[in-house]
């Protein structure tokens, strides 16, 4: 979003949920923000970075989410308000520190924003982080619309300071990346001065050293429980818990987050406002006991709508059982009984179906004739669009070489994958090269293990790949493990000079950071050499050289080899628009479908810049799309694809 700090109090803007959260933090006077890029969270740090100088803030893309949490915590310990931002899986990375952070407590208000991806639209999993709040005993809040995204982000800091603990604010794609009307508040004058106090005694959590030790844990943990009680009291009065509906509804619908928007609309569309009571909880752990009891007592049937896990559902059921003597037994609908799907993101139709079934109200927005006809037509009329690497993407070239190396090497081989654009190496655009894919850094961790199975009889070449940002985030410890344990593996670092998948954020390999300052770049090959790996560097666009280097590494059965493939991302702001070569196809030479080629470039390589002309039976270049990287000319054995250097 363009300068969020310029907009004045009282103006109404159309804002993305993430922009609203950033503005909310600004309105609360946040001074330090740290995070790691991850869809759908990345815009928050980007927004804050763009106003950091203006508002005298420190904003950082940390090397990973654990460090981001630690950096934000440091500011809180120094009495400043701080923000840590990540997607759901980032919380897993920071979980160890989070446990200790929450146990000890915070000083300056600290908020952990987690932006989650139900339905795995941009993730390799459908996990969520709300259960951490219960497991590690700190407060959880969930905004239910765009105005709340801002207002609750601001309030979260206040709450954090009142109870002296980190507050988790949870958002989802359909709030973070969706937009709505938001009325802005005031930006405060910043005058807080950092001061880190540690001279007092061990039990003084505001001025003593910040120590978690076996001796102090019982005291700290007990304080944590006291805090939870206080939070529950605050929650009972919280204006972000909203009820609309009759005093004694036929059905009580309890919901939070984006599901509130779906539930609200579903009730409206079915016209059942007089039958259904809608309780939107903005504070979801701990549960607000008095408020909840009041509404549970007013009905016999409860529907809980949330995503992804039945977190609220299970907690509310437990709560209901505990006060059963007062309010009796209730009939619950939700994920446990199949009313709400257990898998996938929520939407208005899921709630419409649930209400329609429970209340016996018919709902048919479109005639079955239309639906049937539309489905039939769509089969032919809307061919699916497979994901692919962008034209000119260095990963396409890298995977070509890596894939061929696995086929040609002395021993057959396989590749363990990691997280980034190059995760697409698992499907046909990456020649189905990756054979494992989990979380950040897991590729090399697995390879470190596979690389020792040779002693037990596994006769295969082991490769792993990672991106430049991934390398700093999580691969380095796995690499140390592999080298120290003499695993036989080759790590291919796909260095495209940025954290590309999430929008080209900075990372330690660049000399520019989140806020545009000059910073020292940390050199990947130097690190690998210092660790003791055999290192070589290639340009993946030079396909033959790269393949030769990779084959050399594959056939070498001793220890860890690292091959760094360096070529800038096609979408990088530095690169965009600059063509290396003019590419053309000589139709007289092009063999096309015949034996000797069988359309290698369009059938297998499949760069979007290459088109198969089914009438002429020849390949053709799409000049609008082609970025002129020249790789297709190198793989064309007949020499039909020509590349001419652009001066």
């Amino acid at each position, binding site marked *: 979003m363009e300068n969020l700090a310029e907009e004045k109090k009282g103006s109404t803007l159309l804002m993305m949920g993430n922009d609203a959260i950033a503005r909310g933090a600004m309105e609360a006077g946040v001074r330090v923000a740290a995070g790691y890029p991850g869809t759908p969270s990345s815009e928050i740090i980007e927004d804050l970075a763009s106003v950091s100088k203006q508002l005298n803030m420190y904003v950082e893309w940390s090397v990973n989410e654990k460090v981001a949490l630690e950096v934000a915590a440091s500011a809180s310990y120094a009495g400043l308000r701080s923000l840590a931002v990540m997607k759901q899986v980032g919380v897993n990375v920071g979980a160890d520190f989070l446990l200790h952070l929450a146990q000890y407590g915070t000083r300056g208000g600290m908020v952990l924003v987690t932006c989650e991806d139900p339905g795995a639209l941009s993730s390799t999993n459908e996990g969520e982080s709300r259960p951490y709040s219960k497991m590690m005993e700190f407060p959880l809040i969930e905004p239910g619309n765009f105005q709340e995204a801002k207002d609750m982000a601001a309030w979260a800091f206040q709450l954090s300071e009142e109870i002296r603990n980190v507050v988790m604010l949870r958002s989802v794609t359909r709030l973070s990346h969706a937009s709505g009307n938001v009325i802005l508040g005031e930006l405060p004058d910043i005058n807080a001065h950092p001061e880190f106090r540690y001279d007092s005694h061990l039990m003084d959590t505001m001025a003593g050293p910040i120590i978690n030790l076996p001796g102090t844990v019982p005291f700290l943990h007990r304080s944590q429980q006291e805090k939870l009680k206080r939070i529950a009291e605050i929650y009972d009065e919280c204006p972000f818990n909203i009820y609309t509906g009759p005093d004694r509804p036929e059905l009580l619908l309890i919901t939070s987050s984006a599901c509130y928007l779906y539930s609200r*609309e579903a009730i409206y569309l079915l016209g059942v406002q007089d039958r259904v009571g809608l309780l939107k909880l903005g504070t979801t752990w701990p549960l607000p006991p008095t408020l909840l009891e009041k509404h549970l007592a007013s009905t016999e049937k409860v529907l809980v709508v949330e995503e992804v896990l039945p977190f609220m559902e299970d907690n509310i059921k437990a709560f209901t059982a505990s006060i059963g003597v007062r309010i009796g037994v209730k009939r619950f609908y939700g994920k446990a009984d199949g009313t709400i799907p257990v898998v996938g993101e929520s939407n208005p139709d899921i709630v419409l179906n649930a209400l329609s079934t429970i209340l016996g109200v018919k709902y048919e927005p479109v005639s079955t004739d239309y639906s049937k006809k539309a489905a039939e037509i769509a089969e032919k009329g*809307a061919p699916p669009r497979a994901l692919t*690497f962008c034209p000119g993407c260095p990963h396409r070239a890298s995977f070509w070489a890596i894939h061929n190396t696995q086929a040609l090497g002395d021993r057959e081989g396989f590749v363990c994958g990691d997280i980034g654009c190059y995760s697409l190496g698992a499907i046909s655009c990456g020649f189905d090269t990756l054979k494992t894919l989990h979380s950040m850094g897991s590729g090399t961790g697995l390879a470190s293990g596979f690389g020792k199975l040779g002693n037990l009889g596994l006769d295969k070449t082991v490769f792993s790949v990672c991106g430049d940002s991934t390398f700093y985030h999580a691969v380095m410890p796995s690499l140390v493990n592999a080298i120290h344990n003499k695993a036989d593996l080759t790590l291919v670092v796909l260095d495209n000079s940025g954290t590309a998948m999430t929008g080209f954020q900075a990372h330690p390999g660049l000399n520019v950071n989140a806020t545009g300052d000059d910073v020292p770049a940390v050199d990947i090959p130097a690190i690998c050499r210092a660790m003791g790996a055999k290192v070589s560097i290639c340009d993946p666009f030079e396909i033959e050289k790269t393949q030769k280097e990779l084959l050399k590494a594959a056939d070498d059965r001793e220890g860890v080899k690292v091959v760094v493939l360096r070529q800038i991302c096609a*979408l990088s702001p530095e690169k965009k628009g600059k063509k290396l070569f003019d590419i053309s196809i000589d139709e007289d030479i092009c063999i096309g479908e015949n034996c000797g080629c069988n359309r290698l470039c369009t*059938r297998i390589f499949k760069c979007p810049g290459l088109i198969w002309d089914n009438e002429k039976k020849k390949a053709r270049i799409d000049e609008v799309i082609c970025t002129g990287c020249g790789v297709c000319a190198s793989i064309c054995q007949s020499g039909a694809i020509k590349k001419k250097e652009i001066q």
Partner: protein
Amino acid sequence: MASAILSNDPYNLIITGVGGQGNVLASRMVGDMLLQSGFFVTIGETFGASQRGGSLMSHMRISAESYFSPQIPRGMAHMVVSLEPTEAIRVLKDYGNSQVKVISNTRPIYSIGVISGEQAYPLEKDIKNWTEELSQTVWFINATDAAMELGNPIFGNIIAVGALSGIGVLPLDREIFRKVLEKKMTPERVEQNMAAYDMGVSMIDSQTI
């Protein structure tokens, strides 16, 4: 002002296309225009993987009363603006109904499956017939060719915004559009975009007469 101008409240608009066509920008512009006219606007989008060749939808809810779900319930679109012909059909499958109106760009963007020879792209006349079968009214515009005349295919999305204005189902005001542009870009770019907008309006005028 806002109140009785919308034929439906909320008015459900879907802008769809392929990653890279300026879909998101178009929806923001329309949203900003309507916000300035005093409406509640809710927009829902997915991005990330879409740049890598995938389809992209922006769901827009326009209301005089309130915000709504960023995902439109099935079968409830009132207007679909499609920057690519087959994407219109894809959207209509889930969100179309017999009263829906459609603006469709006629210039195809081939999927990787099509350009590699694995899939067949449907014939233009079939796409047109099918789109008409699944809607109440369709306006076909060659926004990409028109944009090329203006100097860059990327203007196709602004031309589509102009066309949407021209149809008149939403109170989209030319001067408010200019104001929205001025907040985001240089005076030179503003004029280029205004030309694209006007071209879109004229494309609808010529069809209606």
